[in-house]
């Protein structure tokens, strides 16, 4: 395949997303007051679906099984980059479709879709970054549009406040991370990940290197909403328009993990950096993140905020993948982490899109406001139930499989206590997830809410997310195959 297409074509998913963003900006500049939601949402959707198509095509055709290096090794397209490109582009497509209804009567529509696709471009670059410089630039490319997107409801105080908070913490962690990168560069004299690894192995400046590595880890912790850089997450997810919350908590988080997986396995392989024990740091992060996220989620009154905290908890599960490296079967562990992020991309997006739907209907935000909602909208509540049970890890979809494989991999790597804590947390999470189900189905309706409209876009996006989540149960095989293949290329 690679002989037929030029090498740069391997970046097709990224390029398509970037081009879509430009086209959207073009449309907006031709007609700044355009209210043609269909054109904007349609362009964004088609663009991201094209990116999905390229990613799937390349994965099936085997592009990237032999990693393709581009631009002096600054970028590398391998199975993992394509795997995550698929996740980001799918989430982008669902979010774009759902935004069609959500953004009705909102201003800045052109900018909205352009920012979403730009952020997605940054995320696909993050997954392909092979140089610390690209890591930083792509991370910023993904982050800056996100700040604006969170605050895009300019007249909504929550949204603006969330955007500001997100931006401030983001700027802080960016600077921490870039300082870390500079320290690592100072020690190793290279930005290219593999060169960093070879230079780091023999250095005597382990102290400086260690601080640099930890600071970089801090940058990723921000992007993945892991403790202790998680403070922005509940605010941002709650204040942002719900489709953007879906985008951030699924795609953006997965992007953080994608780049973290690559940087920490390629540049700082645990086997070579015996003096810098970042695996221990990741273990602490994982335990604290999942425990804190789950306990905080259990005490929330608002559904969207509960989902925000549970998303922090899920970051903790994904951190298990990093934390269990060096256990002997790295590709198994890492693959499990990737597979979980893919499944999570669909089930968590779906959950937030359901919140988007309730916001569209002006249903309240508390659990009580969801009471008896299933009488009005059985289909939507049915799929929300599916997402909730999936997030909790009941076997009604891919969520069970990916979680089981993640915990199983951790046990296999000898970190049974991580898996045990994960399982306990998972059991706890059933409590607050089922609260939503209970409110929707079992409680009597409290208000006299009457839902008449059934927004097509939101329903279509929800149905897609639900369908994929369910199909990922029987179809977990191929996902697992690609994930472990991608992982083994990294840790080999």
């Amino acid at each position, binding site marked *: 395949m690679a002989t037929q297409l030029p090498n740069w074509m391997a970046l097709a998913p990224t390029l398509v997303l970037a081009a879509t963003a430009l086209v959207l900006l073009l449309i907006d500049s031709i007609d700044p007051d355009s209210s043609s939601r269909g054109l904007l949402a349609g362009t964004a959707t088609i663009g991201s679906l094209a990116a999905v198509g390229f990613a799937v095509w390349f994965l099936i055709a085997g592009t990237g099984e032999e990693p393709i290096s581009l631009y002096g090794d600054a970028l590398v397209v391998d199975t993992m980059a394509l795997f995550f490109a698929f996740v980001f582009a799918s989430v982008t497509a669902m979010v774009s479709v759902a935004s069609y209804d959500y953004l009705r009567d909102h201003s800045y529509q052109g900018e909205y879709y352009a920012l979403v696709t730009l952020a997605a471009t940054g995320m696909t670059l993050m997954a392909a970054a092979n140089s610390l410089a690209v890591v930083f630039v792509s991370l910023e490319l993904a982050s800056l549009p996100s700040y604006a997107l969170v605050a895009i409801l300019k007249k909504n105080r929550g949204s603006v406040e969330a955007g500001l908070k997100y931006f401030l913490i983001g700027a802080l962690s960016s600077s921490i991370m870039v300082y870390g990168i500079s320290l690592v560069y100072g020690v190793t004299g290279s930005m290219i990940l593999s060169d960093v690894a070879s230079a780091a192995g023999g250095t005597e400046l382990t102290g400086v290197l260690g601080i640099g590595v930890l600071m970089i880890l801090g940058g990723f912790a921000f992007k993945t909403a892991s403790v202790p850089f998680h403070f922005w997450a509940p605010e941002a997810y709650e204040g942002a328009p719900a489709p953007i919350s879906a985008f951030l908590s699924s795609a953006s988080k997965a992007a953080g993990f994608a780049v973290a997986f690559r940087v920490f396995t390629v540049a700082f392989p645990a086997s070579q950096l015996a003096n810098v024990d970042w695996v221990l740091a990741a273990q602490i992060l994982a335990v604290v993140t999942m425990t804190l996220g789950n306990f905080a989620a259990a005490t929330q009154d608002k559904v969207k905020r509960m989902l925000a905290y549970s998303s922090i908890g899920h970051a903790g599960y994904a951190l298990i993948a990093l934390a269990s490296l060096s256990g002997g079967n790295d590709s198994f562990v890492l693959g499990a982490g990737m597979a979980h992020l893919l499944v999570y991309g669909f089930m968590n997006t779906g959950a937030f899109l359901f919140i988007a739907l309730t916001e569209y209907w002006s249903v309240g935000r508390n659990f009580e406001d969801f009471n008896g909602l299933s009488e009005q909208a*059985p*289909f939507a509540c049915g799929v929300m139930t599916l997402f909730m049970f999936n997030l909790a890890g009941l076997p*009604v979809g891919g969520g069970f499989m990916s979680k*089981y494989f993640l915990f199983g991999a951790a046990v296999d790597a000898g970190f049974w206590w991580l898996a045990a804590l994960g399982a306990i947390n998972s059991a706890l999470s059933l409590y607050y997830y089922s609260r939503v189900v209970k409110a929707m189905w079992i409680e009597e309706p409290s208000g006299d809410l009457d839902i008449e409209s059934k927004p097509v876009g939101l329903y279509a996006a929800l149905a897609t997310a639900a369908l994929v989540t369910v199909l990922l149960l029987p179809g977990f095989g191929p996902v*697992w195959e690609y994930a*472990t293949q991608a992982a083994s290329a990294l840790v080999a």
Partner: protein
Amino acid sequence: MLIEALIAVTLASAFAVFLAPDKIAGKLAFALSLIPVVGSLWMYSTFEATGNALTQGGSLAFEENFQWVVAGPYSLNWHVGLDGISMPLVVLTTILTTLALLASWTPIQERQSQFYGLMLFLEASLLGVFSALDFFLWFVFWEMVLVPMYVLIGVWGGPRRKYAAIKMFVYTNIASLVMFIGFVALVFGLGDSVTTFDLPAVAQALRGGQLQGLGPIGAETLKVVAFFAMFAGFAVKVPVVPFHTWLPDAHVEAPTPVSIMLAGVLLKMGTYALLRFNFTMLPQTAADYAPLIATFAVVSVIYGAMLALAQSDLKRIVAYSSVSSMGYVILGLVAYTMYGMGGATFQMVAHGLISGLMFMAVGVIYNTTHTRMVSDMSGMASKMPFTVAVFVAGAFGYMGLPLMAGFAGELFIFLGAFSAETLGTAAPLFTSAAMFGIVIVAGYLLYAMQRTLFGPFELETDYEVGPAAFHDVAPLVVLVLLVILLGVDPNIFYTMIQDAVSPLVPAAGGGL
């Protein structure tokens, strides 16, 4: 592909009914549910399996085995198939679901399309439980059952439905977790000899004594720990005293059709799993602890029956009687004799039909009188003679009258348990203690019937009491006919059950 088709058709029907308007949902669900009935009966008629699904030798019916996920050294498969143990339960599931759907027409008046959709979803999950032969696949279906059950009880149940639904959900879900850990520990304990979660492969390796132990835990300890982890998990589902407290709550609050499914099929998941996992995979451990398990069984029989005797709510009486009846099944299993194990399996089907019948009859009476309190009713026979006649027939079946299904099942169980080597000299003691349960069963049923059905008509209710609608009584009649049919000719199922059970029984060469 027949099993897949059966599950797929049921799932698709569930989805179609869920989206259908309320007006036609009930009739549509009933009509669609006839497809799996016909399908399962056709499978029964062409059934050609020999031996047990989990032991070597013989062949399974409608077996399919595809690779599902390969994870490092381990592989998960889509593996389904039926043997003489699961075939009767599949038939029971499809028939009972259809009848339960018919029995829903009267009591379920709100959010019908959702109700019927969930019932069909429940059926699909149950079919999966009884046909899956890979642990993961099986566990997926096993847990899938909980979701519709939770909503069915929670939405359409009685006044304390929220409490009952959550209690059921939490109890059985924790039980599943305990069981899951027990089984997975066993598979890891097998070391490299088994790298799959395929139930037959795991069972054969365990029976072949290939358990190595897990880390610091030795093989013998692991066996016992895993056995009781699984036993505890399944005992909640059965339910065995003292793990039974969720059941009466769930039964009393659940609407009639859900009670029918709960007593008729869901409880069988517990005994079915006990048979497949505990008694097939770790027969020696089961035999070692036979007296203990038999004690659990006998206590369940007697205590459940005593509790039933003390109830004043007709539905509660039937609910507690299930605890009692499932105790017989466990006694039969632990006996490890041809009659004991075969009888236990047969009793699963028989009890499914009879308890379904009883719940349905109580439901029909409740629909007309709007009360279930024994003290509120008297002389129902004079107002609704046909329903009462069927009720009495069902009660006789429950008491184990000859020529009815209950008699065959219980007789086999007692025959088997009486000569059980696993129970040693105490076998006759356990058996006769359990047999005494029958006396109590007859006691509470006759006592309840005498007070509610016979005597002068008196009823404290504002509702007009008259004969029930045709679609309410029809499923009762079908069940009575089936109960009699199985009682007159137990060989409809018993020969195939025997064939599947014999490899497990020491005297037949199965070996402990």
